[in-house]
Protein backbone atom coordinates (compact mmCIF):
# COMPACT_ATOMS: atom_id res chain seq x y z
CA UNK A 1 0.00 0.00 0.00
CA UNK A 2 1.06 3.58 -0.65
CA UNK A 3 2.75 5.28 2.26
CA UNK A 4 -0.03 7.48 3.67
CA UNK A 5 2.46 10.14 4.76
CA UNK A 6 3.68 10.70 1.21
CA UNK A 7 0.21 11.71 -0.04
CA UNK A 8 -0.80 15.31 -0.50
CA UNK A 9 -3.48 16.62 1.83
CA UNK A 10 -6.02 16.68 -1.03
CA UNK A 11 -5.43 13.02 -1.91
CA UNK A 12 -5.50 11.95 1.76
CA UNK A 13 -8.71 13.92 2.33
CA UNK A 14 -10.36 12.16 -0.61
CA UNK A 15 -9.24 8.75 0.70
CA UNK A 16 -10.63 9.64 4.15
CA UNK A 17 -13.90 10.83 2.64
CA UNK A 18 -14.32 7.58 0.73
CA UNK A 19 -13.31 5.63 3.86
CA UNK A 20 -10.39 4.04 1.99
CA UNK A 21 -8.36 4.99 5.01
CA UNK A 22 -9.57 5.88 8.50
CA UNK A 23 -8.66 8.88 10.61
CA UNK A 24 -6.97 6.51 13.06
CA UNK A 25 -4.86 5.00 10.26
CA UNK A 26 -3.82 8.44 9.02
CA UNK A 27 -3.01 9.58 12.56
CA UNK A 28 -1.03 6.43 13.38
CA UNK A 29 0.90 6.71 10.12
CA UNK A 30 1.92 10.28 10.98
CA UNK A 31 2.81 9.36 14.57
CA UNK A 32 4.99 6.51 13.27
CA UNK A 33 6.61 8.90 10.84
CA UNK A 34 7.27 11.30 13.71
CA UNK A 35 8.93 8.53 15.70
CA UNK A 36 11.19 7.69 12.77
CA UNK A 37 12.10 11.24 11.67
CA UNK A 38 12.17 13.31 14.87
CA UNK A 39 15.59 12.11 16.01
CA UNK A 40 17.04 13.56 12.79
CA UNK A 41 15.13 16.85 12.45
CA UNK A 42 13.75 17.86 15.90
CA UNK A 43 10.81 19.76 14.40
CA UNK A 44 8.44 19.28 17.34
CA UNK A 45 8.38 20.55 20.91
CA UNK A 46 5.44 18.46 22.09
CA UNK A 47 3.59 15.48 20.58
CA UNK A 48 0.01 15.00 21.77
CA UNK A 49 -0.40 11.39 20.61
CA UNK A 50 -3.06 10.40 23.10
CA UNK A 51 -5.49 13.22 22.37
CA UNK A 52 -4.78 13.02 18.64
CA UNK A 53 -5.71 9.33 18.56
CA UNK A 54 -8.77 9.94 20.73
CA UNK A 55 -9.93 12.64 18.31
CA UNK A 56 -9.29 10.34 15.34
CA UNK A 57 -11.39 7.59 16.96
CA UNK A 58 -14.18 10.11 17.53
CA UNK A 59 -14.04 11.25 13.91
CA UNK A 60 -14.13 7.69 12.59
CA UNK A 61 -17.15 6.98 14.74
CA UNK A 62 -18.91 10.05 13.41
CA UNK A 63 -17.93 9.38 9.77
CA UNK A 64 -16.97 11.86 7.04
CA UNK A 65 -19.02 15.05 6.87
CA UNK A 66 -19.23 17.26 3.80
CA UNK A 67 -18.56 20.52 5.65
CA UNK A 68 -15.35 19.22 7.22
CA UNK A 69 -12.68 19.94 4.59
CA UNK A 70 -9.92 18.58 6.84
CA UNK A 71 -11.80 15.50 8.07
CA UNK A 72 -9.27 13.18 9.75
CA UNK A 73 -6.24 15.13 8.49
CA UNK A 74 -3.29 15.18 10.93
CA UNK A 75 -1.72 18.63 11.25
CA UNK A 76 0.88 20.37 13.40
CA UNK A 77 0.79 23.90 14.79
CA UNK A 78 3.59 26.40 15.47
CA UNK A 79 4.17 26.79 19.18
CA UNK A 80 3.34 30.51 19.04
CA UNK A 81 -0.33 29.60 18.52
CA UNK A 82 -2.43 28.82 21.60
CA UNK A 83 -3.89 25.33 21.91
CA UNK A 84 -6.28 24.77 24.80
CA UNK A 85 -4.90 22.26 27.29
CA UNK A 86 -1.69 21.74 25.30
CA UNK A 87 1.51 23.44 26.46
CA UNK A 88 2.35 26.47 24.29
CA UNK A 89 5.79 27.96 24.87
CA UNK A 90 6.70 30.13 21.84
CA UNK A 91 10.00 28.23 22.30
CA UNK A 92 10.80 30.41 25.32
CA UNK A 93 11.83 29.46 28.85
CA UNK A 94 9.55 32.20 30.11
CA UNK A 95 6.52 30.18 28.89
CA UNK A 96 7.97 26.73 29.56
CA UNK A 97 4.96 25.55 31.58
CA UNK A 98 2.23 27.69 30.01
CA UNK A 99 -0.95 25.78 29.17
CA UNK A 100 -3.49 27.99 27.38
CA UNK A 101 -7.05 27.98 28.66
CA UNK A 102 -8.40 28.79 25.21
CA UNK A 103 -7.81 27.89 21.57
CA UNK A 104 -6.58 30.43 19.04
CA UNK A 105 -9.19 31.30 16.39
CA UNK A 106 -7.26 29.29 13.79
CA UNK A 107 -7.13 26.26 16.09
CA UNK A 108 -10.89 26.45 16.67
CA UNK A 109 -11.25 26.50 12.88
CA UNK A 110 -8.91 23.52 12.39
CA UNK A 111 -10.79 21.47 14.96
CA UNK A 112 -14.19 22.39 13.49
CA UNK A 113 -12.93 21.38 10.04
CA UNK A 114 -12.07 17.89 11.33
CA UNK A 115 -8.29 18.24 11.59
CA UNK A 116 -6.38 16.12 14.12
CA UNK A 117 -3.82 18.25 15.98
CA UNK A 118 -0.77 16.06 16.46
CA UNK A 119 1.98 18.28 17.78
CA UNK A 120 3.43 21.75 18.35
CA UNK A 121 6.30 22.92 16.17
CA UNK A 122 9.64 24.26 17.24
CA UNK A 123 10.41 27.87 16.25
CA UNK A 124 12.74 30.75 17.00
CA UNK A 125 11.88 32.12 20.45
CA UNK A 126 8.87 34.44 20.10
CA UNK A 127 9.33 34.12 16.29
CA UNK A 128 12.52 36.20 16.47
CA UNK A 129 14.94 34.61 14.07
CA UNK A 130 15.42 33.18 10.61
CA UNK A 131 16.87 29.73 11.35
CA UNK A 132 15.00 28.08 14.28
CA UNK A 133 18.34 28.07 16.10
CA UNK A 134 16.99 30.66 18.56
CA UNK A 135 14.66 28.18 20.24
CA UNK A 136 15.31 27.84 23.97
CA UNK A 137 14.80 24.08 23.70
CA UNK A 138 16.32 22.58 20.55
CA UNK A 139 17.66 23.26 17.07
CA UNK A 140 15.52 22.05 14.17
CA UNK A 141 17.37 20.63 11.16
CA UNK A 142 16.61 20.77 7.46
CA UNK A 143 15.15 17.44 6.24
CA UNK A 144 17.17 17.67 2.99
CA UNK A 145 20.48 17.99 4.84
CA UNK A 146 20.52 17.83 8.61
CA UNK A 147 23.69 19.91 8.78
CA UNK A 148 21.72 22.89 7.47
CA UNK A 149 19.11 25.18 8.99
CA UNK A 150 15.43 24.80 8.05
CA UNK A 151 14.94 28.58 8.03
CA UNK A 152 12.70 30.34 10.49
CA UNK A 153 11.02 31.33 12.47
CA UNK A 154 8.45 28.65 11.46
CA UNK A 155 11.28 26.17 10.77
CA UNK A 156 9.64 23.40 12.79
CA UNK A 157 6.47 23.72 10.70
CA UNK A 158 8.31 23.59 7.37
CA UNK A 159 10.54 20.67 8.40
CA UNK A 160 7.54 18.76 9.75
CA UNK A 161 5.57 19.14 6.50
CA UNK A 162 8.52 18.20 4.27
CA UNK A 163 9.41 15.18 6.43
CA UNK A 164 5.84 13.86 6.07
CA UNK A 165 5.05 14.11 9.78
CA UNK A 166 1.77 15.85 8.94
CA UNK A 167 -0.20 17.02 5.90
CA UNK A 168 -0.16 20.70 6.83
CA UNK A 169 1.14 22.99 9.51
CA UNK A 170 0.26 26.48 10.66
CA UNK A 171 3.05 29.02 10.97
CA UNK A 172 3.17 32.76 11.50
CA UNK A 173 4.90 35.34 9.32
CA UNK A 174 6.07 38.68 10.71
CA UNK A 175 8.94 39.34 8.27
CA UNK A 176 9.07 36.14 6.22
CA UNK A 177 8.72 33.47 8.91
CA UNK A 178 6.41 31.26 6.81
CA UNK A 179 7.77 31.92 3.30
CA UNK A 180 11.47 31.66 4.13
CA UNK A 181 11.41 28.27 5.91
CA UNK A 182 9.02 26.98 3.21
CA UNK A 183 11.62 28.06 0.66
CA UNK A 184 14.62 26.62 2.52
CA UNK A 185 12.86 23.28 3.15
CA UNK A 186 11.10 23.04 -0.22
CA UNK A 187 7.38 23.33 0.53
CA UNK A 188 4.55 25.79 -0.10
CA UNK A 189 3.82 28.58 2.39
CA UNK A 190 1.33 31.45 2.37
CA UNK A 191 1.54 34.76 4.21
CA UNK A 192 -2.05 36.00 3.88
CA UNK A 193 -3.11 39.63 3.54
CA UNK A 194 -2.93 41.47 6.86
CA UNK A 195 -6.38 41.13 8.44
CA UNK A 196 -7.42 38.03 6.48
CA UNK A 197 -6.65 35.54 9.29
CA UNK A 198 -7.44 36.38 12.91
CA UNK A 199 -4.48 36.82 15.25
CA UNK A 200 -6.61 35.90 18.28
CA UNK A 201 -4.54 33.43 20.26
CA UNK A 202 -1.28 34.09 18.42
CA UNK A 203 1.45 35.08 20.88
CA UNK A 204 2.22 38.53 19.51
CA UNK A 205 5.59 39.67 18.17
CA UNK A 206 4.92 42.64 15.85
CA UNK A 207 1.19 43.22 15.86
CA UNK A 208 1.01 45.33 12.70
CA UNK A 209 3.05 42.71 10.81
CA UNK A 210 2.04 39.27 12.17
CA UNK A 211 -0.17 36.95 10.10
CA UNK A 212 -0.86 33.23 10.54
CA UNK A 213 -0.77 31.05 7.43
CA UNK A 214 -0.44 27.46 6.18
CA UNK A 215 2.59 25.42 5.09
CA UNK A 216 1.83 22.40 2.88
CA UNK A 217 3.25 20.13 0.19
CA UNK A 218 1.18 21.60 -2.66
CA UNK A 219 -0.51 24.84 -3.65
CA UNK A 220 -3.97 23.20 -3.69
CA UNK A 221 -3.40 21.96 -0.12
CA UNK A 222 -2.39 25.45 0.94
CA UNK A 223 -5.59 26.89 -0.59
CA UNK A 224 -7.66 24.34 1.31
CA UNK A 225 -6.15 25.13 4.71
CA UNK A 226 -6.30 28.86 3.97
CA UNK A 227 -10.05 28.48 3.30
CA UNK A 228 -10.45 26.90 6.74
CA UNK A 229 -8.54 29.52 8.77
CA UNK A 230 -9.43 32.74 6.91
CA UNK A 231 -12.40 34.84 7.90
CA UNK A 232 -13.65 37.51 10.21
CA UNK A 233 -13.22 37.30 13.98
CA UNK A 234 -14.47 40.04 16.27
CA UNK A 235 -11.82 39.16 18.85
CA UNK A 236 -9.09 40.61 16.59
CA UNK A 237 -9.80 44.29 15.93
CA UNK A 238 -7.71 44.17 12.75
CA UNK A 239 -9.61 41.16 11.35
CA UNK A 240 -11.22 42.16 8.06
CA UNK A 241 -14.97 41.58 7.62
CA UNK A 242 -15.07 40.91 3.86
CA UNK A 243 -16.10 37.38 2.77
CA UNK A 244 -13.46 34.78 1.86
CA UNK A 245 -13.38 33.30 -1.63
CA UNK A 246 -13.42 29.50 -1.80
CA UNK A 247 -10.00 29.27 -3.44
CA UNK A 248 -9.68 25.48 -3.06
CA UNK A 249 -13.00 24.80 -4.80
CA UNK A 250 -12.09 27.22 -7.57
CA UNK A 251 -8.79 25.36 -8.13
CA UNK A 252 -10.48 21.95 -8.04
CA UNK A 253 -13.20 22.95 -10.50
CA UNK A 254 -10.65 24.41 -12.87
CA UNK A 255 -12.58 27.68 -13.11
CA UNK A 256 -9.79 29.68 -11.49
CA UNK A 257 -6.93 27.63 -12.77
CA UNK A 258 -6.40 30.50 -14.97
CA UNK A 259 -3.41 29.29 -16.90
CA UNK A 260 -0.29 31.35 -17.08
CA UNK A 261 -1.32 32.45 -20.57
CA UNK A 262 -1.70 36.20 -20.59
CA UNK A 263 -0.73 36.58 -16.92
CA UNK A 264 1.43 39.64 -16.28
CA UNK A 265 4.25 38.73 -13.88
CA UNK A 266 6.11 41.72 -12.46
CA UNK A 267 9.81 41.33 -11.74
CA UNK A 268 11.07 43.95 -9.29
CA UNK A 269 14.55 44.73 -10.56
CA UNK A 270 15.80 45.31 -7.01
CA UNK A 271 15.08 41.64 -6.16
CA UNK A 272 16.88 40.20 -9.15
CA UNK A 273 20.09 42.20 -8.74
CA UNK A 274 23.39 41.12 -7.31
CA UNK A 275 22.10 40.43 -3.79
CA UNK A 276 20.90 36.90 -4.48
CA UNK A 277 23.23 33.91 -4.88
CA UNK A 278 23.69 32.88 -8.52
CA UNK A 279 22.02 29.49 -7.92
CA UNK A 280 18.95 31.16 -6.43
CA UNK A 281 18.66 33.67 -9.24
CA UNK A 282 19.09 31.06 -11.93
CA UNK A 283 16.46 28.67 -10.43
CA UNK A 284 13.94 31.53 -10.27
CA UNK A 285 14.80 32.71 -13.77
CA UNK A 286 14.38 29.17 -15.12
CA UNK A 287 10.90 28.99 -13.56
CA UNK A 288 10.02 32.35 -15.06
CA UNK A 289 11.16 31.14 -18.49
CA UNK A 290 8.78 28.19 -18.13
CA UNK A 291 5.98 30.62 -17.24
CA UNK A 292 6.88 32.74 -20.25
CA UNK A 293 6.86 29.69 -22.55
CA UNK A 294 3.28 29.05 -21.38
CA UNK A 295 2.21 32.54 -22.35
CA UNK A 296 2.96 34.67 -19.29
CA UNK A 297 4.25 38.16 -19.91
CA UNK A 298 7.25 39.25 -17.82
CA UNK A 299 7.17 42.92 -16.88
CA UNK A 300 10.09 44.69 -15.22
CA UNK A 301 8.98 46.89 -12.32
CA UNK A 302 10.83 48.90 -9.70
CA UNK A 303 10.48 49.17 -5.92
CA UNK A 304 13.02 51.94 -5.29
CA UNK A 305 12.84 51.95 -1.50
CA UNK A 306 13.72 48.25 -1.20
CA UNK A 307 17.12 49.20 0.25
CA UNK A 308 15.43 50.96 3.17
CA UNK A 309 13.03 48.11 3.93
CA UNK A 310 15.28 46.14 6.29
CA UNK A 311 16.00 49.12 8.55
CA UNK A 312 12.32 50.14 8.42
CA UNK A 313 11.17 46.65 9.30
CA UNK A 314 13.52 46.12 12.21
CA UNK A 315 12.71 49.50 13.78
CA UNK A 316 8.98 48.77 13.63
CA UNK A 317 9.19 45.07 14.58
CA UNK A 318 11.48 45.75 17.56
CA UNK A 319 9.34 48.66 18.76
CA UNK A 320 6.21 46.53 18.64
CA UNK A 321 8.03 43.58 20.25
CA UNK A 322 9.24 45.68 23.17
CA UNK A 323 5.65 46.70 23.84
CA UNK A 324 4.10 43.24 23.29
CA UNK A 325 6.65 41.42 25.43
CA UNK A 326 6.12 43.79 28.36
CA UNK A 327 3.29 41.47 29.41
CA UNK A 328 5.74 38.76 30.47
CA UNK A 329 6.32 39.93 34.01
CA UNK A 330 6.15 36.75 36.11
CA UNK A 331 2.82 37.68 37.70
CA UNK A 332 -0.11 36.16 35.80
CA UNK A 333 1.57 33.38 33.82
CA UNK A 334 5.00 32.17 32.83
CA UNK A 335 8.25 31.86 34.69
CA UNK A 336 8.78 33.66 37.98
CA UNK A 337 12.20 34.16 39.56
CA UNK A 338 12.66 32.49 42.94
CA UNK A 339 12.36 34.57 46.11
CA UNK A 340 12.17 38.11 44.71
CA UNK A 341 12.65 40.78 47.39
CA UNK A 342 10.18 43.21 45.83
CA UNK A 343 7.94 43.66 42.80
CA UNK A 344 10.56 45.43 40.68
CA UNK A 345 13.01 42.59 41.28
CA UNK A 346 10.29 40.06 40.43
CA UNK A 347 9.82 41.71 37.01
CA UNK A 348 13.51 42.17 36.23
CA UNK A 349 14.76 38.76 37.33
CA UNK A 350 11.84 36.82 35.84
CA UNK A 351 12.41 38.49 32.45
CA UNK A 352 16.20 38.25 32.60
CA UNK A 353 16.08 34.54 33.43
CA UNK A 354 13.22 33.78 31.04
CA UNK A 355 14.17 35.50 27.77
CA UNK A 356 16.98 34.40 25.43
CA UNK A 357 19.65 36.71 24.04
CA UNK A 358 18.00 37.56 20.70
CA UNK A 359 14.72 38.40 22.42
CA UNK A 360 16.52 40.67 24.91
CA UNK A 361 18.38 42.35 22.06
CA UNK A 362 15.15 43.15 20.22
CA UNK A 363 13.25 44.29 23.31
CA UNK A 364 16.09 46.63 24.29
CA UNK A 365 16.47 48.10 20.80
CA UNK A 366 12.69 48.47 20.64
CA UNK A 367 12.69 50.39 23.91
CA UNK A 368 15.46 52.57 22.52
CA UNK A 369 13.69 53.53 19.27
CA UNK A 370 10.51 54.34 21.20
CA UNK A 371 12.22 56.36 23.90
CA UNK A 372 11.98 60.15 24.22
CA UNK A 373 14.50 61.80 21.92
CA UNK A 374 14.68 58.89 19.48
CA UNK A 375 11.02 58.25 18.68
CA UNK A 376 10.82 60.69 15.76
CA UNK A 377 14.21 59.78 14.29
CA UNK A 378 13.54 56.06 14.32
CA UNK A 379 9.97 54.94 14.90
CA UNK A 380 8.03 57.75 13.23
CA UNK A 381 10.56 57.93 10.42
CA UNK A 382 10.25 54.17 9.81
CA UNK A 383 6.47 54.47 9.70
CA UNK A 384 6.81 57.17 7.03
CA UNK A 385 9.15 55.02 4.94
CA UNK A 386 6.71 52.16 5.43
CA UNK A 387 4.06 54.18 3.59
CA UNK A 388 6.46 54.85 0.71
CA UNK A 389 7.23 51.12 0.48
CA UNK A 390 3.55 50.16 0.56
CA UNK A 391 2.64 52.73 -2.09
CA UNK A 392 5.40 51.46 -4.39
CA UNK A 393 4.01 47.95 -4.17
CA UNK A 394 0.51 49.19 -4.98
CA UNK A 395 1.81 51.13 -7.99
CA UNK A 396 3.77 48.11 -9.27
CA UNK A 397 0.73 45.86 -8.85
CA UNK A 398 -1.39 48.21 -10.97
CA UNK A 399 0.66 47.04 -13.96
CA UNK A 400 0.80 43.31 -13.16
CA UNK A 401 -1.27 40.41 -11.86
CA UNK A 402 1.40 39.43 -9.37
CA UNK A 403 5.03 40.23 -8.59
CA UNK A 404 7.63 37.42 -8.54
CA UNK A 405 10.80 37.39 -6.47
CA UNK A 406 13.21 34.99 -4.79
CA UNK A 407 12.28 34.29 -1.16
CA UNK A 408 15.75 34.04 0.33
CA UNK A 409 19.04 35.37 -1.08
CA UNK A 410 20.65 32.00 -0.30
CA UNK A 411 19.58 28.38 -0.06
CA UNK A 412 19.70 26.83 3.44
CA UNK A 413 23.02 27.58 5.11
CA UNK A 414 25.01 25.57 7.63
CA UNK A 415 23.82 25.43 11.21
CA UNK A 416 25.75 28.01 13.22
CA UNK A 417 27.03 29.88 10.15
CA UNK A 418 25.59 33.34 10.90
CA UNK A 419 24.92 33.15 14.62
CA UNK A 420 27.63 35.51 15.83
CA UNK A 421 26.43 38.47 13.77
CA UNK A 422 22.79 39.48 14.30
CA UNK A 423 22.90 42.26 11.69
CA UNK A 424 24.10 39.81 9.02
CA UNK A 425 21.18 37.54 9.94
CA UNK A 426 18.69 40.43 9.66
CA UNK A 427 19.98 41.15 6.14
CA UNK A 428 18.96 37.63 5.08
CA UNK A 429 15.30 38.71 5.37
CA UNK A 430 15.76 41.29 2.60
CA UNK A 431 13.25 39.77 0.15
CA UNK A 432 10.46 38.87 2.52
CA UNK A 433 9.93 41.62 5.06
CA UNK A 434 8.76 44.45 2.82
CA UNK A 435 5.61 42.44 2.12
CA UNK A 436 4.73 42.49 5.82
CA UNK A 437 5.31 46.25 5.93
CA UNK A 438 2.86 46.59 3.02
CA UNK A 439 0.36 44.09 4.48
CA UNK A 440 0.08 42.21 1.17
CA UNK A 441 -0.20 38.44 0.58
CA UNK A 442 2.74 36.29 -0.57
CA UNK A 443 2.84 32.66 -1.67
CA UNK A 444 6.20 30.85 -1.60
CA UNK A 445 6.60 27.70 -3.68
CA UNK A 446 9.57 25.53 -4.59
CA UNK A 447 10.86 26.16 -8.11
CA UNK A 448 13.90 23.90 -8.17
CA UNK A 449 17.15 23.12 -6.42
CA UNK A 450 20.31 25.17 -6.29
CA UNK A 451 22.85 24.00 -8.87
CA UNK A 452 25.68 24.25 -6.34
CA UNK A 453 24.09 23.33 -3.02
CA UNK A 454 21.43 20.89 -4.20
CA UNK A 455 19.09 22.53 -1.68
CA UNK A 456 15.55 23.78 -2.45
CA UNK A 457 14.99 27.24 -3.94
CA UNK A 458 11.68 29.03 -3.40
CA UNK A 459 10.07 31.84 -5.33
CA UNK A 460 7.29 34.05 -3.99
CA UNK A 461 4.27 35.41 -5.81
CA UNK A 462 3.10 38.69 -4.33
CA UNK A 463 -0.44 39.88 -4.88
CA UNK A 464 -2.86 42.71 -4.20
CA UNK A 465 -4.55 42.82 -0.82
CA UNK A 466 -7.18 40.06 -0.44
CA UNK A 467 -6.28 38.56 -3.82
CA UNK A 468 -5.02 35.23 -2.46
CA UNK A 469 -7.19 33.53 -5.12
CA UNK A 470 -4.91 34.83 -7.87
CA UNK A 471 -1.78 33.73 -6.02
CA UNK A 472 -3.19 30.23 -5.70
CA UNK A 473 -4.35 30.10 -9.32
CA UNK A 474 -1.02 31.21 -10.79
CA UNK A 475 1.00 29.28 -8.20
CA UNK A 476 -0.95 26.12 -9.03
CA UNK A 477 -0.38 26.61 -12.76
CA UNK A 478 3.34 27.17 -12.21
CA UNK A 479 3.62 24.19 -9.88
CA UNK A 480 2.06 21.93 -12.54
CA UNK A 481 4.41 23.27 -15.20
CA UNK A 482 7.57 22.62 -13.16
CA UNK A 483 9.08 19.17 -12.60
CA UNK A 484 8.92 19.38 -8.77
CA UNK A 485 11.73 18.71 -6.33
CA UNK A 486 10.59 15.38 -4.83
CA UNK A 487 10.98 14.49 -1.16
CA UNK A 488 14.05 14.15 1.04
CA UNK A 489 15.30 10.64 1.75
CA UNK A 490 14.71 10.69 5.50
CA UNK A 491 14.04 7.49 7.45
Amino acid at each position, binding site marked *: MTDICSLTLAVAAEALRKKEISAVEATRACLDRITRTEPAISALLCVDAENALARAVELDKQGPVADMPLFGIPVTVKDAICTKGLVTTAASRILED*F*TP*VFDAFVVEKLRAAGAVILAKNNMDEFAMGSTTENSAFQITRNPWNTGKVPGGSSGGSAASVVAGQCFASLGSDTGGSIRQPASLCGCVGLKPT*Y*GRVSRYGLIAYGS*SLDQIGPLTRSVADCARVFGVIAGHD*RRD*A*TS*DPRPVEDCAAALASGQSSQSLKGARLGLPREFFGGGAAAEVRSACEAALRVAESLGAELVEVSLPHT*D*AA*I*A*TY*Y*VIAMAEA*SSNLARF*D*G*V*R*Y*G*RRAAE*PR*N*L*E*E*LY*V*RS*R*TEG*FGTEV*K*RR*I*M*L*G*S*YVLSAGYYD*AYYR*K*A*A*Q*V*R*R*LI*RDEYLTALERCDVLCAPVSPETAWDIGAHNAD*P*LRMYLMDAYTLSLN*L*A*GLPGLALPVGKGAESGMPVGMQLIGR*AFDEAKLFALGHALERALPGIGSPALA
Partner: protein
Amino acid sequence: MSEQKTVTQDDALKDDVLKMASLSRLQTDGEEQSLFARQFRDILDYMDTLASVDTEDVEPLYTPALHGGMPRDDVSVPGIGRGEALRNAPRRDGEYFIVPRIV
Protein backbone atom coordinates in the same frame (compact mmCIF):
# COMPACT_ATOMS: atom_id res chain seq x y z
CA MET B 1 43.54 60.52 19.90
CA SER B 2 41.27 58.29 17.84
CA GLU B 3 41.77 55.49 20.37
CA GLN B 4 40.62 57.84 23.10
CA LYS B 5 37.55 58.69 21.04
CA THR B 6 36.68 55.01 20.60
CA VAL B 7 36.97 54.40 24.32
CA THR B 8 34.63 57.32 25.03
CA GLN B 9 32.17 56.14 22.39
CA ASP B 10 32.18 52.62 23.80
CA ASP B 11 31.57 53.95 27.31
CA ALA B 12 28.65 56.03 26.03
CA LEU B 13 27.24 52.96 24.27
CA LYS B 14 27.55 50.89 27.43
CA ASP B 15 25.62 53.62 29.24
CA ASP B 16 22.97 53.40 26.53
CA VAL B 17 22.81 49.63 26.95
CA LEU B 18 22.27 50.05 30.69
CA LYS B 19 19.53 52.60 30.03
CA MET B 20 17.84 50.33 27.48
CA ALA B 21 18.01 47.40 29.88
CA SER B 22 16.47 49.48 32.64
CA LEU B 23 13.64 50.67 30.35
CA SER B 24 13.05 47.04 29.36
CA ARG B 25 13.10 45.68 32.93
CA LEU B 26 16.13 43.51 32.11
CA GLN B 27 19.53 43.05 33.71
CA THR B 28 22.78 42.65 31.78
CA ASP B 29 26.14 41.52 33.08
CA GLY B 30 29.46 43.07 32.07
CA GLU B 31 30.10 40.65 29.22
CA GLU B 32 26.62 41.17 27.76
CA GLN B 33 26.99 44.93 28.03
CA SER B 34 30.15 44.87 25.91
CA LEU B 35 28.60 42.47 23.39
CA PHE B 36 25.34 44.42 23.11
CA ALA B 37 27.19 47.76 22.92
CA ARG B 38 29.13 46.50 19.91
CA GLN B 39 26.12 44.90 18.22
CA PHE B 40 23.82 47.84 18.91
CA ARG B 41 26.35 50.21 17.37
CA ASP B 42 26.30 48.16 14.13
CA ILE B 43 22.53 47.78 14.12
CA LEU B 44 21.78 51.43 14.94
CA ASP B 45 24.33 52.61 12.35
CA TYR B 46 22.43 50.50 9.84
CA MET B 47 19.07 51.92 10.97
CA ASP B 48 20.50 55.42 10.63
CA THR B 49 20.40 54.94 6.84
CA LEU B 50 16.69 55.77 7.14
CA ALA B 51 17.66 59.40 7.71
CA SER B 52 18.65 59.69 4.06
CA VAL B 53 15.13 58.85 2.81
CA ASP B 54 13.09 61.92 1.89
CA THR B 55 9.86 61.67 3.90
CA GLU B 56 8.76 65.27 3.84
CA ASP B 57 4.95 65.48 3.93
CA VAL B 58 4.63 61.68 4.15
CA GLU B 59 2.04 60.53 6.67
CA PRO B 60 3.32 57.67 8.86
CA LEU B 61 1.72 54.28 8.20
CA TYR B 62 1.34 52.50 11.53
CA THR B 63 -0.87 49.64 10.35
CA PRO B 64 -1.65 48.13 6.96
CA ALA B 65 -5.23 47.28 8.08
CA LEU B 66 -7.59 48.40 5.33
CA HIS B 67 -10.73 48.83 7.36
CA GLY B 68 -11.41 51.22 10.16
CA GLY B 69 -11.93 48.56 12.81
CA MET B 70 -15.28 47.33 14.00
CA PRO B 71 -16.09 48.14 17.60
CA ARG B 72 -17.88 45.31 19.36
CA ASP B 73 -21.42 45.67 20.59
CA ASP B 74 -21.49 47.30 23.99
CA VAL B 75 -22.73 44.23 25.82
CA SER B 76 -20.99 42.10 28.41
CA VAL B 77 -20.01 38.58 27.43
CA PRO B 78 -18.90 35.77 29.73
CA GLY B 79 -15.13 35.68 30.24
CA ILE B 80 -12.94 32.74 31.15
CA GLY B 81 -13.68 32.99 34.88
CA ARG B 82 -11.43 33.41 37.88
CA GLY B 83 -10.33 29.80 38.18
CA GLU B 84 -9.18 29.62 34.57
CA ALA B 85 -7.57 33.05 34.71
CA LEU B 86 -5.49 32.00 37.70
CA ARG B 87 -4.57 28.58 36.38
CA ASN B 88 -1.18 29.60 34.92
CA ALA B 89 -0.21 31.99 37.72
CA PRO B 90 3.13 31.09 39.35
CA ARG B 91 1.67 32.07 42.76
CA ARG B 92 -2.02 32.35 43.58
CA ASP B 93 -4.34 31.75 46.49
CA GLY B 94 -7.49 30.68 44.66
CA GLU B 95 -8.78 34.22 44.41
CA TYR B 96 -5.81 36.47 43.63
CA PHE B 97 -2.37 36.60 42.00
CA ILE B 98 0.22 36.80 44.77
CA VAL B 99 3.15 39.22 44.41
CA PRO B 100 5.73 40.49 46.91
CA ARG B 101 4.49 43.10 49.34
CA ILE B 102 4.18 46.50 47.63
CA VAL B 103 3.51 48.92 50.52
